[in-house]
């Protein structure tokens, strides 16, 4: 009897566990069979029938539309698909949903064939701009895209509540939406607040989401909250479903003016913060494209996966936040120089970034960027001098709090921060690492509450016009993300913005670059490659030269 009881309970547990396992495996395999595809991307015989292999009627006959493309990345910005509630990190998916006012191409130039504006002109004083729009763009609900929608979107983007990364740049050029005059449904005039030779760039999709167009009528009819849950754009894909922090699903429009019939019927964006999990998902065939660290890219190439990279695509640096505060350790230039001399850039490049980067000179310009002084050299590793400078400075052992967080483009971020913290500790800096998420750090940056705090960012390369817009945001006293209040920097940025001819702008950019180099305004580290790994379904991929979007839309181009 006792023997019975002894064996009975474990047996029951084992039987129940086995049953649950069988059910779980059965469920898992059945759901997988619905999405299984063969190597060509066509749905296999066991997957959802008929609709998958037959292209939609309006898709050109030459295009073989595949069922689904799954992209796994670390984060997707705010995951709030409106033009004023999303920032630059969400731009990759936003360009699938929306069209830009001024279009751009993969070479990183404004392009009259890829945006709503097909023509524009500027007055001699760069104060007045006239734009002509295409008349054949329709939103996903069938409404036509007009000049009213453009004015409405610029007003949203440049509003005080906007979280768009370069909203400040737009605001500086168009202080009041009333400066925008709708002449007709296809014509728009903008009177700038100051000479703006690059206005068309500021409202393009070259940098953040500022140039994207959201429908006025639909937004006003459903309200902002409802719109954010079920957005309507005019891009090549329409919004289907979303679970924040997990996925966003989009479905291709049948015949989009910009993309034609997109190659994939569905695009699924998945957020997988852990790199190992992303790699496992790619190898298991669950996803097709993943962002991958520089360290893992060579190994994955050896494993037979495709690696696509942008070389020297961004520059990694740490901010010296709120330098203007009286109690800021950064106020003293000796401290800033000491920090810059304390880190061994060569070693970081070699061992943290697997040799796939090079020491850089001045953040936020990668060495390949336009408008830079090529004669300058990266600051050397000189811990002895750094310690001397620190000893001679006003630094008295105050705690430096460095925020550490993983990011899609820098999975090595936390390791990089630990390495930097170790170098700084070696020269006598009292460093504290605060693990957090980028979104939290960004809020602190916006609120300017990072006294004696630091955090890293990889600033992507951009065209000259991009730097014109960026520098106010990052370093002008009025910039939303500024870490400096230096009258000389302000003057140089204003001179940069006032430039109309490319030669003037380049000269102003070089002057600013040289000044920031001499002032050690940031802790500049290295120029980095950006890499993605894909399976065999992606044979070629031009990552382009846009900022914050590595050509994801090229993956779906027919």
């Amino acid at each position, binding site marked *: 009897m006792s023997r019975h009881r002894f064996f009975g309970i474990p047996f029951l547990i084992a039987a129940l566990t086995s049953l649950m396992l069988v059910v779980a495996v059965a469920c898992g395999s059945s759901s997988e069979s619905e999405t299984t595809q063969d190597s060509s991307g066509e749905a296999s015989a066991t997957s959802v029938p008929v609709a998958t292999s037959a292209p939609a009627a309006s898709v050109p006959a030459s295009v073989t539309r595949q069922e689904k493309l799954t992209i796994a990345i670390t984060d997707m910005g705010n995951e709030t698909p409106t033009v004023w509630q999303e920032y630059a990190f969400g731009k990759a998916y936003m360009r699938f949903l929306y069209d830009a006012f001024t279009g751009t191409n993969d070479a990183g130039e404004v392009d009259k064939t890829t945006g709503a504006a097909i023509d524009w002109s500027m007055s001699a004083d760069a104060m007045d701009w006239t734009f002509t729009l295409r008349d054949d763009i329709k939103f996903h609900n069938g409404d036509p895209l007009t000049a009213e929608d453009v004015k409405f979107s610029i007003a949203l983007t440049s509003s005080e509540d906007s979280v768009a990364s370069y909203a400040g740049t737009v605001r500086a050029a168009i202080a009041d939406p009333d400066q925008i005059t709708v002449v007709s449904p296809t014509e728009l005039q903008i009177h700038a607040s100051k000479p703006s030779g690059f206005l068309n760039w500021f409202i393009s999709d070259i940098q953040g989401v500022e140039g994207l167009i959201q429908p006025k009528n639909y937004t006003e009819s459903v309200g902002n909250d409802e719109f954010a849950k079920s957005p309507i754009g005019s891009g090549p894909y329409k919004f289907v479903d979303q679970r924040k922090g997990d996925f966003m699903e989009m479905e291709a429009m049948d015949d989009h003016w910009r993309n034609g019939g997109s190659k994939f019927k569905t695009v699924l964006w998945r957020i997988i913060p*852990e*790199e*190992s999990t992303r790699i496992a998902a790619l190898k298991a065939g669950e996803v097709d494209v993943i962002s991958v*660290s520089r360290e*893992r890219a*060579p*190994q994955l190439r050896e494993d037979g996966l495709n690696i696509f990279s942008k070389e020297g695509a961004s520059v990694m640096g740490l901010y010296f936040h709120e330098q203007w505060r009286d109690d800021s350790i950064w106020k003293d230039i000796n401290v800033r120089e000491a920090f810059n001399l304390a880190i*061994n850039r060569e*070693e*970081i490049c*070699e*061992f*943290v970034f*697997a*040799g796939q980067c090079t020491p850089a000179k001045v953040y936020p310009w990668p060495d390949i960027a336009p408008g830079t002084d090529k004669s300058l050299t990266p600051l050397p590793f000189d811990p002895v001098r750094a310690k001397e400078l620190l000893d001679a400075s006003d630094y008295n052992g105050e705690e430096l709090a460095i925020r*550490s967080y993983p990011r899609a483009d820098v*999975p090595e971020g*936390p*390791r990089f921060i*630990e*390495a930097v*913290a*170790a*170098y700084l*500790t070696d020269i006598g800096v009292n460093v*504290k*690492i*605060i*693990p957090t998420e980028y979104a939290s750090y960004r809020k602190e940056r916006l609120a300017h509450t990072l006294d004696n705090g630091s955090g890293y960012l990889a600033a992507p390369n951009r065209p000259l016009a991009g730097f014109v817009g960026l520098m106010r945001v990052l370093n002008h006293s009025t910039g939303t993300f500024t870490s400096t209040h230096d009258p000389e920097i302000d003057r140089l940025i204003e001179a940069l913005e006032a430039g109309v001819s490319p030669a003037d702008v380049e000269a102003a950019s070089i002057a600013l670059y040289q000044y920031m180099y001499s002032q050690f305004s940031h802790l500049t580290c290295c120029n980095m490659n950006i890499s993605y790994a894909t399976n065999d379904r992606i044979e070629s991929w031009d990552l382009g030269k846009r900022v914050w979007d590595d050509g994801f839309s090229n993956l779906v181009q027919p």
Partner: protein
Amino acid sequence: MMANVIDTAAIQPVKVSRLPKIFAAFKAAPVIPLTIIVVFVLAALLADLVTFHDAYQVKLPERLVPPAWVGDTTVMKTVSETVAIDELEKKITLTKASAIDSSSQVGDRIEVVVRQGGSWSRPLGTDPLGRDILTRIIYGARVSIIIAGAALAIGGGFGTLVGLTAGYYGGKIDTILMRFADITLAFPLILFAILLVMVLGPSMMNVIIAISLVLWARYARVIRGEALGLMQRDFIARARVSGASDWRIMMRHLLPNVMPTLIVLLTLQVGWVIIVEASLSFLGAGIPPPTPAWGGMLSEGKEYVSTAWWVTTAPGVAIMLVVMAFNLCGDWLREKLDPKQRSI
């Protein structure tokens, strides 16, 4: 008849050694778990003396060195071209291959060392920043023992006080205190701790506070049950009749009688606290880097599970051994201190 007279003055007290009793008590002691605990505690206390490396010193060129017993990792490669290094102006960085036979010809299949083997100067290898893993595990033990000690002292102490109060007074006080305990126990533990640490910010003190705030309820529940049973006993009634204050009855009569239960509970909870601390550190809500913490070390190594297994294995094994040792010792203590268990 003469009565036997005993000269009491001549009787000398027999000196009975206590050692046999102590040995008897430890006769069935779990030797291996106790040894692990002793090593764990000594390592934590004497970390500065028993380590040869700096737990915080980053040495990037020495990153991901495998454990001492792991030899060179080699792969077979085909020579595709030969270059005259002396004539080459460009610096070559060979991060993957460290030894190539210079006599090889194009087309040869050669064995290339892609990772050097380990050495006994770093017995358990190094982490992604070149820090000695054994040293960090030893210092991590110190972090674990500080957190476990502090959390158990605070949480256990407060919980015991609440349990004794509830059991002694009963009635509404008991009901109110136990409802608070129920609410605490009902909340998902890790989520609660993460929320707390996220609000307060990650630090050792905040981890201790977070764990203590969750821990007290377990003690309160168990001790209250014990106290309720003891309240029916005659010695409590006698203490009351003799005019002892409530506080004196709780501290002098109830507390000593719940002590065996408390000790067992404390021992069993050490492992639990270590697991919670490791979980919080793994999730990024625990001890912030670069302080060595076992959970944090696991987290740092998770990206390297397939390429540098030792980064996660070493702290994982440390957590497993220590938690298992405390659990086994807790079970043994329970048997020793609980008369009911002994009679079975």
